[in-house]
């Protein structure tokens, strides 16, 4: 699976995904077993109802809206910036797009992409005579 960086640094105004902060590229693990591909995406601060997964042909777009608010106090030390998340993936042909499942817990998104059942090789008998 090849991933494709976000197209731009800014999201187009789209319902439910407008945020003043930057759009971040979340860190991702991609695993594969015999039956499926598994995407694990870090999205701290994103609630399960603020995740959006869209599939357009073979392009899977994962985005999340951060609901976490900074405390109303002076920032005295900053190591991370909070913002919305966006990342796109090109799915391999073997993924059965109808069977994609996703779950979100503790700011971690898991997407399971089952592979289409392997096709048995068909033997073609050559008739003689």
């Amino acid at each position: 699976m090849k991933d494709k960086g976000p197209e731009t640094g800014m999201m187009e105004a789209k319902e439910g995904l407008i945020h003043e902060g930057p759009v971040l590229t979340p860190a991702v693990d991609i695993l594969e077993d015999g039956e499926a591909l598994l995407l694990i995406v870090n999205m701290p601060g994103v609630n399960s109802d603020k995740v959006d997964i869209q599939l357009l042909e073979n392009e899977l777009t994962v985005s999340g809206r951060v609901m976490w608010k900074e405390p109303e106090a002076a920032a005295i030390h900053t190591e991370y910036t909070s913002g919305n998340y966006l990342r796109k993936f090109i799915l391999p042909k073997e993924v059965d797009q109808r069977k994609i499942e996703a779950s979100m817990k503790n700011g971690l998104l898991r997407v399971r992409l089952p592979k289409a059942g392997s096709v048995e090789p068909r033997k073609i008998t050559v008739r003689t005579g």
Partner: protein
Amino acid sequence: MAIFRWRDPFDEHFREFSRLQEEIDRLYERFFGKQPYTLKGRVFPAVNVYEDDANLYVSAELPGVEPQDLDITVEDERLTLRGARETMNETETLRYRRREREGGPFHRTFSLPARVDPEKAHAEAKDGVLMVTLPKAGVMEPKKVEIRVD
């Protein structure tokens, strides 16, 4: 007729300028996208610290960490965050195709910039973000030391 100076794209200064622009773009990308923002080898967890008159607030990004697997201690103006991130072990059939997230145990200690009352500290975790609120300790009255003069 106005005369404009034609800017030769191969002019030395102009080239220098575009190089600077590239540097800026690269920096921008590093902070705001294109690159995965959690790069390997980074200190975990990333924290932000805030302060107002009454409290210190420490927030940390802990995606995938169960709140019950997190250990937070406040002692001697030091805050310690300890826990473990779940990792998937590769097997015969399960293979990593790409690995950007870090896993395994973590342990981080900070010196706090103010005295806090550990008894009143509290924390909450939501959607993989931890927020520790540390009420500042009451201001100590300066103690006057009498000098005895014989």
